[in-house]
C-alpha cells in the first residue's frame, strides 16, 4: 500500500527535530507529508478531500489541547488521528482512544509501528471516504424524489403493501402503484432491498 499517491499524512508537533525526523521517515515510505508546528494551523486548512491521517503530538493534560483535538476530529471526520506523545502512560492512552484516536504511539517510535499505524489509518480513511461518496450518491437520489414519493417510500421500506399504503395515505391503490414505479425509476433500483439500502444510507426510516 506504500507510496499511495492519493493520500496525505499530517504531522503536528511543536518540536522541529521531531517534525523533520518523522517527515523523513514517512517520505522514505512514500507518503506525502505535511508538517505543522501547532494544531491551530491544522484547523485553518479548509478541507481535506483525500484520504490521510493526522499524527498529533499533544499534551493530554491540557484542557485547551483536548478542545482543539475535538475540533480537529469534528472538522476532518474521514481523517483518523494517531496520537504520538513523549510522556505517555496507560490512563493517558485510554483517554486518547476514548477521545476517538485510532492509535496511540509513544516517542521514540519505531518505524514499523509508525508505518503500520499510518497504513491502517489511511485504509480506514479510504473506507470512510468511500462511505461518504456512497452516502452522498444515495442522498442525491433521495433528493430527486417528490415529497409524496418520499412518503410512499417510507411505507414501502417498512414492508407495507400497496393496499395498506393507499389506506394510510387515503389515496387510491392505483396511485400508490404509480408512485412506486416512479420511485424505482428515479432511484434506479430493481428490488425493494435495494430501495431499503439507499434509504438507509440516506438516514431515512
Amino acid at each position: 500500500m506504500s507510496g499511495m499517491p492519493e493520500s496525505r499524512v499530517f504531522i503536528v508537533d511543536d518540536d522541529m527535530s521531531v517534525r523533520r525526523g518523522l517527515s523523513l521517515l514517512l517520505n522514505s515510505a512514500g507518503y506525502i507529508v505535511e508538517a505543522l508546528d501547532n494544531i491551530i494551523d491544522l484547523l485553518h486548512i479548509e478541507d481535506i478531500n483525500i484520504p490521510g491521517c493526522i499524527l498529533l503530538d499533544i499534551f493530554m493534560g491540557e484542557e485547551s489541547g483536548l478542545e482543539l483535538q475535538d475540533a480537529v476530529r469534528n472538522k476532518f471526520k474521514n481523517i483518523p488521528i494517531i496520537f504520538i506523545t513523549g510522556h505517555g502512560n496507560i490512563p493517558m492512552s485510554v483517554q486518547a482512544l476514548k477521545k476517538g484516536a485510532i492509535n496511540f504511539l509513544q516517542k521514540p517510535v519505531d518505524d514499523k509501528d509508525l508505518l503500520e499505524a499510518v497504513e491502517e489509518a489511511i485504509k480506514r480513511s479510504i473506507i470512510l471516504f468511500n462511505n461518504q461518496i456512497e452516502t452522498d450518491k444515495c442522498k442525491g437520489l433521495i433528493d430527486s424524489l417528490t415529497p409524496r414519493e418520499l412518503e410512499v417510500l417510507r411505507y414501502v421500506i417498512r414492508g407495507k403493501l400497496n393496499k395498506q399504503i393507499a389506506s394510510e395515505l387515503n389515496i387510491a391503490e392505483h396511485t400508490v402503484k404509480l408512485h412506486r414505479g416512479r420511485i424505482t425509476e428515479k432511484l434506479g433500483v430493481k428490488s425493494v432491498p435495494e430501495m431499503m439500502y439507499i434509504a438507509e444510507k440516506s438516514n431515512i426510516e
Partner: protein
Amino acid sequence: MYRFGIKILIIVLLLLSISSEVPAQENKARTCVIFFSYSASMVAYQNMLDGFNESFIQPLDKPISIVSEYLDIGRTNNEAYGRSIVEMYNQKYKESGIDLVIAVGPGILPFLKKADLKMLKNSPLILVDIFISPADSVTNASQVNGMPVYLKYNYFTKSFKKICDLFPDRRSVYCVNGNGILDNYYFSILKDSQQKNSGTHKFININGLSIDSTLSTIADLPEESVVVVVSYSEDINGLAFTTPEVANLIARISKVPVFILGGDSFPKDGGVIGGYVISYNNVGKEFGKAANQILRGADPKSIMADLPGLYQYIFDWRELKRWNLLDSKTIPSQSTILYQEHSFFYEYKWYILGLALFMVTQTLIIIYLVRAHKIQKKVKQQILENQTMYNKIVREDRLSKMTVLTASLSHELNQPLTAILSCAQAGIRFLDSEKLDREQAKEIFENIIEDDKRAGGIISGVRAMMKFENREMENVTVNTLVNETLNIMRNEISRHGITIKTNLENNPIIVFADKIQLQQVLLNFLRNSIDAMEKNDPDDKKIEVSMKLDRDLVTVSIHDSGPGIDKSILKRIFEPFVTTGKTGFGIGLAVSRTIIENHHGEIWAENIPDGGAEFSFRLNTIKNE
C-alpha cells in the same frame, strides 16, 4: 486497811497567842509534826504526804523539819495505850518542842483534847478531820485553846443529784452502808441529802446486814433501781472491809448500775459505774498551803481551804458505755474518766491525720506530676509530629519536583531521540529503496548529529542543576543567565501558549554569585508566572523579563499578566509553605529568598496597577572588567 472517810473538813486551828513569841529559839531548827490517826499502812496518808510535799515550801530563814507520827488510835480504842503514846511523844519532843501541829484523821480531835500533850500548848494546830461536825469543831477547837476555821461542804446532796440525773428512769436508789464507826457516821448524815432528792427518786437504805445478806439483797433488786455504796468498813458481824472492796463485790452480782460514794479510792476491779471520790493528794496540798501561810506569820483567819477541789467525779468508761451514758450531758466536764478504750483513730488521731495529710499531699503531687508528665509527653509528641510533618513536606516537595523533573526530562529527551530514530530509520529505508542520494544522506546524518547534541545538552544541563550544592561563587553575567534560563523554559512557556518579551540591558552586567542558584530563583519566578496565568485567556498570556541597572545595583523582574497575588498572602509570599497555586508546597519562593539573602540582595513581589504580578530581585554588580 483504810479506815479513812470520804468527807473531810479541814479546820485550821490557830493558837493566836503563840505566833507572837518564839522564846530563845531563834537559831534552833523548828519542828512540824503531822499526826495521823491510823497506821502508816494507809495509802491515803501517803497520797496526802505527797500532796503536802508538793505544796509545802521550806522557809529560807528558819528551816522546818517535818515529822510524821502514826497514832493508830482508830482501832486501838484503849485508854492505857493512849496515855502511853502521849507520854512517849511528850518525851520525844521535850527538847525540840513542836512549832506546828497538823492533826489528820478521824477521831484525832477527841484524842488530842483528852491527851495532855504539853508541847502542844503553845503550838498552832491544823486539824484535818472528817468527823467534826461544824458545831462540834467550834467548841472542840476552843477547848484546845484555839480558834477554829472550818469550811463546810456537803457533797452527798450533789452526788445523789448526779445519780438521779444520770438515771432519771431508775426511781429507786438503794444505799448500802456497813456498820463500822465511819459507816454509822455516814449513815447519820445521809438522810438530809436523800430528802433533798426525794422529789424524783425514792431512797432505800440497806444496812445492819451481814455481807452475805447485803449481797443477796442486791442480787434481787428490781430493774428500775440504782445501787449506791456509801460506806462499808465492817458488816454487822464485825468483818472488816474497805468500801471499794465491797463496791466491787456488789458490782459483780448487781444487775443494775452501781455507784460508790465513800471510800478513799475508786474500785479497781471494775463494775462500778462511778462515784464522787476524795483526792487525798489534794488534801495534802491544802494543808501544805495552810502550813506555809502560818509559818510565814499569816493571819490565821484569812486561811481558807479550797475544798471543792478535794473531791472529784470518777467514772469507769467501760461502765458508762455499758449503760449507754457515754454521751450523757450530765457527766461533769471535769470528771476523771478511767479505763477509756480509745478507738484506734482517737488514740492515734494526730498520727492518722498527719499520715492522711501526707498521703493527700503526696497524691496531689503524684497527680500533678503525672499530668505534667502527660502534658510534656503530648508537647514532645506534638513537636515530633510537627518535625515529621515538616520533613515529610520537604521530602514530598523534593519528590514532586523530582517527578516533575523526571517527566519533563523524559519528554525533553524523547524529542531528540524520536528525531534521531526516525532519521536513521528513514535513511535505511531510502538505502533499501535505492533512492538515497548523497545530499539526502548528508542531511539525515546532520539531523542525527544535531539531535544527539541536543540530547546531550539536556542531560548536562540537568546534571549541572543537580549538583549545585558544591558550587562556588563566580562572576556571572546576568544577561546571559537570563537568556539561558529562558532557553531552558522556552519549550514549557510556548507549550502554555505564553508569549515572552525581554527587556534586558545591552551591556553585560556581572554579579558575583552562584550561577545555578540564581538560575533556580529565575526558574521559580517563571514557574510561578506560568502557574499564575493558567486560567488566563490564551491571547493574554504574557511574561515580560526586564533588567535594570541603577548605579551598581541590578534588578531583574519578571512580570506576568496573571490575576496578581492575593492580598492575603502578598506579605507572606516568601515565607515557607505559603503557596500561590495548588501545585507546589510553597517552598520555591522561600528557597529563592534564602538564595538572594545569601547573596546579600533583596527580593520582593508586588502587584502591578496595570495588572499582573511582578517578582524581582536586586543584586550588587561588579564593575565590568
